[in-house]
């Protein structure tokens, strides 16, 4: 896959991984190409508002696509998970980031607390990722039992 240039395209590229693998393999490269072109055009067309309306439109479109595509796979539980997981992870990181006293980065007095918070965040992310990956990889087994 072509490496995207802008930060917007990188974020969009990362978010595409929330789509079902079959859809991603089939169309991700072209979707990114179209995204890049639409972004260029939006930047030229409405410089006074910046790219925020474009970003909002793309985010809404992608969220809808993720939900619809997971429903099409016959595994609809993944739709809310695919939307909620990044929202929960980014909210948790944002909350954690607000609570980190930045002055501690310079001193060493409470660095253990900072380290503990970072380790806790990483552990939580690993647990969440494990749950999602387990759900995904047990899918063929569920199919086998259904037959």
């Amino acid at each position, binding site marked *: 896959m*072509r490496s995207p240039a802008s930060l917007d395209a990188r974020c969009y590229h990362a978010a595409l991984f929330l*789509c079902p693998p079959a*859809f991603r393999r*089939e*169309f991700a*490269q*072209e*979707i990114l*190409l*179209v*995204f890049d*072109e*639409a972004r260029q055009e939006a930047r030229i067309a409405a410089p006074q508002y910046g790219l925020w309306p474009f970003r909002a*439109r*793309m985010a*809404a*479109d*992608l969220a*809808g*696509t*993720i939900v*619809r*595509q997971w429903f099409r796979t016959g595994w609809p539980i993944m739709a809310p998970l695919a939307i909620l997981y990044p929202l929960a992870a980014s909210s948790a990181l944002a909350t954690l980031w607000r609570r980190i006293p930045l002055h501690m980065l310079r001193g060493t007095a409470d660095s253990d607390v900072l380290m503990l918070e970072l380790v806790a965040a990483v552990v939580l992310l690993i647990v969440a990722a494990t749950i999602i990956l387990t759900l995904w990889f047990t899918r063929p087994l569920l199919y086998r039992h259904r037959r």
Partner: protein
Amino acid sequence: MAPLTPAVMHVLLSLAGGERHGYAILKDVLQQTNHQVRLGPGTLYGTLQRLMESGLVEETDGPGSEADERRRFYRLSRAGREALKAEVDRLDALVRHARGRGIVPRASRP
């Protein structure tokens, strides 16, 4: 046949003008609708996926120019053209019916 969704209708109408790649379809839909309908890339490719699965649209090799190497081109299949024609006939009948009730679209007024 069930009525086509607006996204499907716009994509089929765009491809009725000849084979196009994804971004050209988006631009064409924007133009068709006077900038009223702005399909996102996810919606567009989800629609194209469904249309290809149902045999209404097929992928082509495209013009083969060097600049368009990364692009994929799509065109209407015979079934797609028939489905589009059936939908346009249905909408035409609907407009005639609306005219009969005195609801005339502004663009059709003399």
